[in-house]
């Protein structure tokens, strides 16, 4: 279970203070599929960074599957992230210089897993997203939809407890968007917690719950019949 209690985050430059999150409290049950919506600049990405252990809140508390992590060091967060969290981004964020197989493998690299095990799990993940035959291709040789499927494979290959998807369909056409949503739902059904930021009402409707954010605060939560 994930739990945020009065989490605040302020970005400061010399002259400007931006209140990205102004006291967010939120609970996400293990195995839940949550969609986060809100206009640009409302704090969605900041929230996702904190949920994904990429950043610490300035104040408040965050329980990551029962462990209070708000004051954890960078090193500890890295250890928790390793295998605990998978990410899917709007712009895919595949490494240009690595081929499909190697891109997916990056998720397993820092876990002390043997080369053979990594290989098997990468193959299985690529099989799962239907791209096993593209394993040796470079990202530049794939379509946008295919690239996002590689990104999904990279997120799920580590069998994380939590997958965070930041507008995963934002750069895709309807058909490819639907395919990615299908995959996320499937992963969620297998027991993985999924939190997704999206602008699409249709895609948000596929989640079990929608959280709306405005100016760094949760303004509404809608439970949907999944």
């Amino acid at each position, binding site marked *: 279970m994930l739990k945020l209690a009065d989490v605040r985050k302020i970005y400061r430059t010399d002259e400007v203070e931006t209140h990205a999150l102004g006291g967010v409290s939120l609970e996400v049950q293990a195995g839940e599929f949550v969609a986060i919506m809100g206009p640009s600049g409302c704090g969605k990405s900041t929230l996702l960074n904190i949920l994904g252990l*990429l*950043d610490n809140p300035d104040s408040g508390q965050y329980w990551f599957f029962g462990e209070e992590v708000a004051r954890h060091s960078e090193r500890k967060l890295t250890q928790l992230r390793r295998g605990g*969290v998978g990410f899917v*981004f709007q*712009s895919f964020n595949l*490494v240009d210089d*690595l081929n499909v197989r*190697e*891109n997916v493998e990056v998720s397993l690299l*820092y876990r002390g897993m043997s080369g053979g095990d990594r290989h098997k799990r990468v193959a299985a993940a690529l099989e799962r997203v239907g791209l096993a035959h593209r394993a040796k291709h470079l990202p530049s040789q794939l379509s946008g939809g295919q690239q996002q499927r590689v990104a999904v494979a990279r997120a799920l290959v580590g069998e994380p407890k939590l997958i965070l998807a930041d507008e995963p369909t934002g750069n895709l056409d309807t058909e490819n968007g639907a395919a990615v949503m299908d995959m996320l739902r499937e992963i969620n059904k297998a027991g993985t917690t999924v939190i997704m930021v999206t602008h699409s009402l249709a895609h948000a409707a596929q989640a079990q719950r929608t959280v709306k954010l405005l100016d760094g605060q949760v303004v509404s939560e809608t439970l949907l019949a999944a």
Partner: protein
Amino acid sequence: MLSNYLAAALRNLVRNRLYSSISVAGLGIGLCGALLALLVVRNQLTQDRFVAGYEQLYLAATMTRTQGGVVDYSRSTDGRLAALLKERFRTVQQTGRLYLENGGLQNGDNAADELISWVDPEFFNMARFPVVAGDLATALQRPDGLVLDRHTARRYFGRDDPVGESLQLRSAASRELHAMTVTAVIEDLPAGGTSFQAGVFGSGLAAHSLLAQMDRSSPGEPGSNAAGVFTYARIASSESIPAIEAGLSPVMNALFKSADGSSIALELVRIDRLNRHEGLTPGITAKLALTLLLGFIILLVAAVNYINLFTARADQRALEVGIRKVSGATNGALIRQFLVESLAYAALGTLIAIAITEWSLPYVNAFLNAGATFDYWREPGLLALLVAAPVVVAALAGVWPALTFCAFRPGMVLGAARSQMRGGGLPRQVLVTLQFALLIGLMISAGVVFLQRHFALHQALRLNTDQILMVWAPCREAFLNDLRRIPGVRGFACGGWQWLNEEPNRFTARARDGSPVNLWRVPVDLAVFDLYGLRPVAGRVTLDEAGRQYPQDARHYVINESAARRLGFRTAQEAVGQKIAIPSVVAGAVGGEEIIAVIPDYSLVSVEKAIKPTAYFFEPSQQYLISVKLAAADIPATLAQIDRAWAATGAKAPTSRFFLDERLERMYLSMLRQAQAFGVFAIVALLLTAFGLFGLAMASVARRTREIGIRKALGATTQDVLRLLLWQFGKPVVWANLVAWPLAGWAMQHWLAGFAYHIDLPLWMFPLAGLGALLIALATVSAHALKVARARPMTALRYE
């Protein structure tokens, strides 16, 4: 895991071929520069190691401290020292003397001048040279024994093993021929790798050898304590050396019987350390340090290129870093990854460096007259260095980019603002400034060095050496009369070998205030000054205006301006007619009594050194060198006539002669080469800096494309954008001047002060070098800047 790192690194390298080649080739050139500097310096520090057992072989050097406080080191010692060493000290196992003679060899018609090393019969038992043929241990036990090196053997016999063959040897002084027998052949002395000057060794047992002549003469006679002998000793333990030096110095002083109050001390120098002995080779430490510094600067410039190009494209790698961090990579793992990547670059650079070094070393050796070797497959130490070099370079050049990358926050780099990643903008500016400071400094230094050399070669020489032929011959009247009759001979004058300032004798005179002053002594005909176009600054070298000569004795002598100053005269005029007594070197002969003229300072030896205060005497017994001024027309015919005149004296050996101009050119060659080497280093640094800047401009323009699009969309003209981009690269160059000027000025002022005659620091060179660097920088980046500045804003914006 490593394969995943390497895949990313190698594909990135290939994808960015241009950046990669600038980085790798730059590192290669930088490492090559450092390596060459290191090899040349090592060559200087490891002379004579081809002699087996060099670790126990020492040369006795003499340190003379005059009353005037001058400390003078000499490689030669009193001829009697060798026997004393062996007799008095148990740890001295063997000693051997070596005495050089400008002689010649002759096999039938095949004749040439050769430098002969006369050595004691046991010499090769002590100094074990590599043998090609014959038995070196017994080779010089017979009086006619002669040892040749391989190429001399080939020159006279056309083969490597002429053991048992006969060869005529011509002595310098008497010019008589003596039959010698080749008893052994040794390997060629390593060019540029030895302090031994000649590869022809004659047995000191030969009655005509200089060693035997010296041993025969009774004490007090000229030549009896000849101070031109090199004394070598094999000493079992280096711990006994201080005791030997301390024990012998008083004995040496007793032998030396200084007339002028100077004292001498003995210093035993291991033979492989002769060339790094600051006393024996003045300025060597500074010279070697400068060589290393130049090599290091080149490497530094290359490393800066690497760092800058790596970090300037940080945005390209930021995503990879972000993804790896998100996947749980720790900073340590990422630093390791980027260090491994740097190591790959540095290893490639090292391979290139090895290739360039292999290819260029023969040219470098020929250029610097050095004997640097690069046998890394045979030298574990060198091999270890080549393995360590990329590791060290990767660690130094890779650490900063690695840290820059690790500092990226994944949340930031994976978001939309990736193209704004700067990746160490300020440090990069600082590094570029440093690069240009080094470049400007090198340009100023090279310019000053070049001007000073030019000055030294053209203005500081002060002698007219055109068509002057030097003939090694005793000044006998019959030969001189023949010379007079040759139409192509305009004039001639006799002198001692000291005329060429090789190692003039020194003595102490009393200055006007009675204090002791060290002067150098050169035996000459007083006619020599006219022959060389040296007009006295005061007084006359002839008895009267009509040109009548002074009586031929040493009573009336000439000094140079330095001597006049040293003796305490305010003007040259004041010195003329003064009676300052000077002892004769020849026992019982008349010494100098009166100064008749002061000539300008001149030097036929290194212009780097201060011209020594010198007195010029008539001393017929010392005159073996005739300067002959030739008419410009038909020189070959004149030379043939001189050779015939020489043959008519009854000498069997051919004339030994050379043109002074050629000798001077050879002598200045090494100095000129130093200046040229400086220039080469500066040009290499310039190219590296320019290439680095070119890559940086490309990276920067790519990064700023969006900004440029926005600026243009908002109304900026092409000129506005161009100015913006050029200023970005011009700025570090302007700052670099602030660093470079004072440092280069200080260093060059210091360097010039080491010359007796030097130019003033050319201040105009500073802005010129700065302007040059700025123009180079702008020219390098202008193509890119112009291309981007002229692009339509939509193109620039769509780039995202």
